[in-house]
């Protein structure tokens, strides 16, 4: 069974009388444990697709089925609860909370789950160890390098063991060395946790790691290929 399935997924933005198709009848499905990426130029619809799958936005037409549930009809509260349980996000700009330590940032998604302090601590440290940052648990984002910040963001995305991790240009703000480091970690986590990773990227370094590359252009899927 597909973890994610889209049927005629369409998103139209209106600018005055002009209709802009950010996504144009996209039909895709992703299986559990995939390490797939959406590539294409700016404005091709990559981020919009991730937003639809992450239930951060609603489609104009079509359906999104995540974990067997039709998500386009969820209200904002149901969508938040769904995200809380199944979806992890990694952002281009890391989006860490500046006043909180690495530990506290990673702990955030667990605060709303019914877990004891001990359980939370165990899970956070486990996630930080997976990204090799256990020793920086008490550092604040301002005390971390760009690569370390993104690793904290990855730890935050995986700490609740989501089925799906959506990464929007995760290496865009990193140098080559840190990009490879982060990608190695994500590939490793994908292996270990069997979580489905979907990237939105146009970074060649990321593309090298993908096992499936979906090319978008003007909101349409123009190529869907399995990588060696």
């Amino acid at each position, binding site marked *: 069974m597909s973890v994610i399935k889209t049927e005629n997924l369409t998103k139209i933005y209106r600018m005055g009388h002009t209709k802009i198709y950010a996504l144009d009848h996209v039909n895709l499905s992703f299986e559990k444990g995939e390490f797939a990426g959406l590539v294409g130029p700016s404005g091709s619809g990559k981020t919009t697709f991730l*937003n639809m799958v*992450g239930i*951060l*936005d609603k489609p104009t037409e079509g359906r999104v089925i995540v974990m067997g549930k039709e998500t386009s009809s969820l209200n*904002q*509260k149901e969508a*938040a*609860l769904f*995200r*809380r*349980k199944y979806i992890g*996000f990694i*952002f281009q*700009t890391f*989006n860490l*909370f500046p*006043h*909180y330590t690495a530990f*506290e940032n990673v702990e*955030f*998604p667990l*605060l*709303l789950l019914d877990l004891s302090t001990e359980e939370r601590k165990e899970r956070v440290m486990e996630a930080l160890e997976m990204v090799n940052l256990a020793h920086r648990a008490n550092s604040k984002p301002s005390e971390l390098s760009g690569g370390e910040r993104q690793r904290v963001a990855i730890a*935050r995305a995986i700490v609740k063991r989501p089925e799906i991790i959506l990464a929007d240009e995760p290496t865009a703000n990193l140098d080559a060395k840190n990009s490879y480091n982060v990608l190695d970690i994500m590939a490793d986590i994908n292996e270990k946790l069997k979580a489905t990773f979907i990237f939105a990227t146009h970074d060649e370094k990321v593309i090298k790691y993908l096992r499936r590359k979906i090319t978008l252009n003007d909101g349409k899927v123009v190529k869907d290929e399995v990588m060696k």
Partner: protein
Amino acid sequence: MVLLKLAYKNLVRAGLRTWLNALALSFGLVAIIGLQGLYIGMGEQAASVAKDAEYGGGQYWHKLYDPYDPLTLQDAHGKIPQNISKLISEGKATPILIVQATAYPQGRTVPVLLKGIIPEQKILKFPTGVLKSEDVDGIPALIGERMAAELGVKEGDYLTVRWRDVNGTFDATDVKIVKIMSTTDQNIDNGQIWVPLKVLQRLTGMEEEATIIVVSPDLKNPPPAPGFEFKNLKFLLKTIEALVKVKTQGTFVIYIILLSIALISIFDSQVFSIFKRKKEIGTLMALGFTRLQVIILFTLEGALHAFFAVILSALYGAPLLIYAAKVGYALPKSATESFAIALGERLYPRYGTGLIVGTAILVFIVTTIVSYLPVRKIAKMKPTEALRGGIQ
């Protein structure tokens, strides 16, 4: 609980901004408690002085007596009932006879009230004992400093006084000012001349009569007295309470200004937070926080300023207010005269638990409302737009 903890952390970690807002709010809180305490203290002080010098534990009024209508004095006197006479002899009550009169200092005419009181009485705390003077050549009279100033007399001076007796016949005599007392209670001073009760009863032909009878504070359940009506302290102090209330209401404008300054800065901080932390809001939503939870989080952040303000107020305000309550505020004589109620030379504020807790709760509620208003905007915010940051 999670949201409260997060709000607390966010505020504490915001550092100086939080403490500046809390400090501004605490100024308002301390000022409100301070001012309100001052009025409560004023009311209690005035009530205490009035009880000591005028009301005792309550008063029997002759059924025709109306303190606000001097014309009633002509008829507002009657025989002291027997059961009350017993109380008087036991020192549990003291009668006062009030008669309208005219004083003639240095050829001027000054309307006064002649008040007869038992010199030996111990219920009212002013020096009526001086009226016992047997060796006085003439009738001994006790007046207050205000009356003395108005009449232009000093101790030892004689003063001609004219009155009407029970039959309406004018009579006159000289009284000797044996004492000029200093009192904060204008109601036993302005326009009044105190003389021995027996003398006044004799001069007016109102033997064994009184206008009012003051009872001792120790007397529980005053008995009914034919021809007289008992007025308890609640009734007698109503005027003071009303006066203090009016004065308190006048200070609401100050409270509003003080609180507004602090609340505007909190409102401003909240608006700033919504714009500056838009990406944070989007991230929270992406992590699984519902919009309502984000709204509660940000509202709590604003509302907790009140909590910090209470802490700050306790740190610097409590010692300040306690010191003020201990030392009191010196009042110039002109100020005490203008207040129309009995005030001492120093005014001692009083802060009850109700005042402190009530003010803190009021500040907390208003702060929460002010914090919530800008945060409502989050309810309309789309996660994708919030994640992009910037100004919408």
